[in-house]
């Protein structure tokens, strides 16, 4: 089976890769592009650990075929910081101790960024429902929600 050539924009940079037709975007990110920040927790779209932003929408990259990335703009956890400067969400996750094992953290951060991109002033309830597709087994979400609300406040003030 021949591989497909895919051109996309990943974290603002042009990127090209070859993939199998059945390969998911998650597999391509991790195995072809060495972007292992997106995690596989379930491969069925239930845990959100593989969340990426595709053309402004948050998606589970395990549910999208890699070939579907052709021509699209994809943001992954690796693109959240600007060089060595952390995004306010990343900084607030650290300050609030919003991670324990850290495995779900990339997905939560990507999903939270997508939330704040469209709603700079979410309520606690809106935040909880937006993040309901991102499973975390360690934290009970308390500090995660606080970190997102605090980051939103900081971004509004900036």
């Amino acid at each position, binding site marked *: 089976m021949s591989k497909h050539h895919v051109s996309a924009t990943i974290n603002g940079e042009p990127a090209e890769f070859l993939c*199998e037709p059945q390969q998911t975007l998650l597999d391509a990110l*991790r195995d072809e592009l*060495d*972007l*292992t*920040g*997106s*995690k*596989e*927790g*379930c*491969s*069925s779209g*239930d*845990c959100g*650990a593989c969340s990426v932003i595709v053309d402004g929408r948050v998606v589970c990259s395990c549910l999208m075929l890699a070939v579907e990335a052709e021509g699209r703009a994809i943001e*992954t*956890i*690796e693109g*959240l*910081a600007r060089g060595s400067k*952390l995004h306010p969400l*990343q900084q607030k*996750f*650290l*300050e*609030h*101790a919003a*991670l*324990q*094992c*850290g*495995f*779900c*953290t*990339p997905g939560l*951060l990507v999903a939270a960024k997508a939330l704040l991109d469209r709603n700079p002033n979410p309520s606690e*309830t809106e*935040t*909880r*429902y937006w*993040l*309901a*597709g*991102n*499973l*975390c*087994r*360690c*934290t*009970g*979400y*308390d*500090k*995660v*929600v*606080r970190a997102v609300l605090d980051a939103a406040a900081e971004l509004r003030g900036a």
Partner: protein
Amino acid sequence: MNDVAQQFKWVGTRPIRPDGVPKVTGRALFGADLAMPGMLVGAILRSPHAHARIRSIDTSKAAALPGVKAVVTSADFPEQKFEYVGPERVAMNFWHMTRNIMAREKVLYEGHAVAAVAAISKAVADEALSRISVDYEVLPHVIDVDEAMRPEAPLLFPDMITRGVDPAPTKPSNISKRIEYKLGDLEAGFAAADVIVEMKFKTAPVHQAYIEPHGCVARFDADGQGELWSSSQGHFVVRALTAQLLGMKIGDLRVYPAEIGGGFGGKTVVYIEPVATMLARKSGSPVKIVMSREDVFRASGPTSGSAMTVKIGVKKDGKIVAADGVFKYQAGAFPGSPVMNGCMCAFSPYDIPNARSVGYDVVCNRPKVAAYRAPGSPISAFAVESVLDVVAQKIGMDPLQMRLKNAARAGTQMLYGPKLAHNGYAETIEAILNHPGYKAPLKKNQGRGVASGYWFNAGGESSATVHVNEDGTVVVATGSPDIGGSRASMAIMAAETLGIDYNQVRPIVADTASVGYTHVTGGSRVTFATGIAVVEATKKVINELCARAAMTWKVDAEGVIWEDGHARPASSNVGDFAPLSLKEIAAKRGLTGGPIGAAAAVNPGGVAPGFATQFCDVEVDPETGKVTVLRFVAAQDVGRAIHPSYVEGQIQGGVTQGIGWALNEEYIYTPQGRLDNPGFLDYRIPVASDLPMIEAVLVEVPNPSHPYGAKGVGEVNIVPPMAAIANAIDRAIGRRLTELPMSPPKVLAAIDSGKGT
């Protein structure tokens, strides 16, 4: 705590964790993130049957497939001796373990590994698995614990004679072990009671449900040396178990700790590591195995489902005079449920003069259970703490006041032998009694429930090394995988002891060849035991720093003390020397004797148990039976919080897992014994929108056996929630639920039937 703030510079503060940035940028490497040149993909063939005899396995067609580099079955692993080793509470039997990682005579659960391949790609590996033919003779299976105990139940092991029964039974059964603890005179105790309540309970099996599936990479060289990168709660234990299962010398295997994406007890054992190592040995290439989520649910350690009966007798004034419990726990396919823990913890929060707990460890056709957060205790506590609530209602007493009246304190005789050595329980009750929310009014269909819990906590073997760099920065290496911020607490304790800035300390988790033996990150032991190792190594370094200063000053070493990060003369008699900072001493280390570092290896006593008391408010929807948790307040005696944020996080996480256990989570089996919900869609753990904020109340009764007063904090928080929620439901709608999970259909059925299930 104000006095703590004054007493300590770093202990009790909330600095950013040293391993934090890689975890928010996606750069931290977990088990599945490692890759090596020439690495093969390993895949495991798993049983479709709950119980079957393996007549034969034909792997020839798989081995012949181009791209397949190795095929492994149980025939490749050496047979192990049938023998229970280690302390009874956590005994292991390698005869069982080798059969669990790769089935031999029989498959004992759906998902049981039967063969494995290593191939050049996942597609080839999957194709190879489909070409392995296994001839099964399907056998009747049994899953429910009560059914498994029946004399006519299908037997998993035809020669299993119940241990702990005298005289030994003459017939085999699925009951691996019976245990019993007794204190006082049970009959007289119940005779003296004014009110006696006896109830039966069932709990569903649940999974630890860490988000990271098990993952590892193994390499094996022609000289017999192996290396493993593994996401586990204890790489030294992974090394020991893998070496034993492969018949290797421990010194020939080096295990590196990957970052671990949650474990909760489930990553204290091995599944894929011995298989990957064997595939690497046979193929000569590195092999990576990553479990799928389905594999995790079907084949890795859930905890027990159970059936229990608990009877408690009290005087009218609330004094408990007798308690009796029978606890039957599923072990899964091989013996070793946490029922002994369940029996030991069940009544331990209380001073009860007459008590008994009886436990049965029962095998059944489910994956062998693995530890899950305070293993065994949440199950028995659900029964005990529910009965206590009924008792309190019958005598018209506040359930917390009743607990306070009976609270175990230092010196209380415990059912399982020792006297309780530490206070802390009563303080957690008082913390909840004094919480303003405990008296807040409730609305219709809302109820407030309380419950308490006990967990041993653990000490155990730990090692640490501390090295001073030439610029005065410090590296602290331990053998404890960091699951929830322990590197931060190690750095805090080292910085506090040295009197230097937290950010001058770099804590790492070292591999099995780079630091001394360290037992698993489990039993809430790391901040206690590994923390003691870090502080001891740091103190040795301080002695060395003082000696270097003495050498510089040409005085006796005894004449130098360490204070606030500096060597100082112990008194003016020693001489008038300006204090030397750590940095100044480090800069001159070459002239004063060379590198400065020390190691410590400990197996500390003085473990203090964990106590928790919690209340929650719930609202029951009478139309659907759905239970919503409105408020959850969890008090816990933490000894002293080294990094309070991560202590709160442990409590919030444990409570949330308890909420899932209480309301949603369960293994559902088909009539054929196949797991019907091996994914996160149908095995529903709590999501953000299910929950309120979880309020953690840190009660600090310092542990005198730890240099900074720490007690284990990771586990006891999961013990009370199931009963607290059941008690809240009962007080909301007048229905007593005695089966977990208390999912909407069960709650609705209870409402409709007019009584509890």
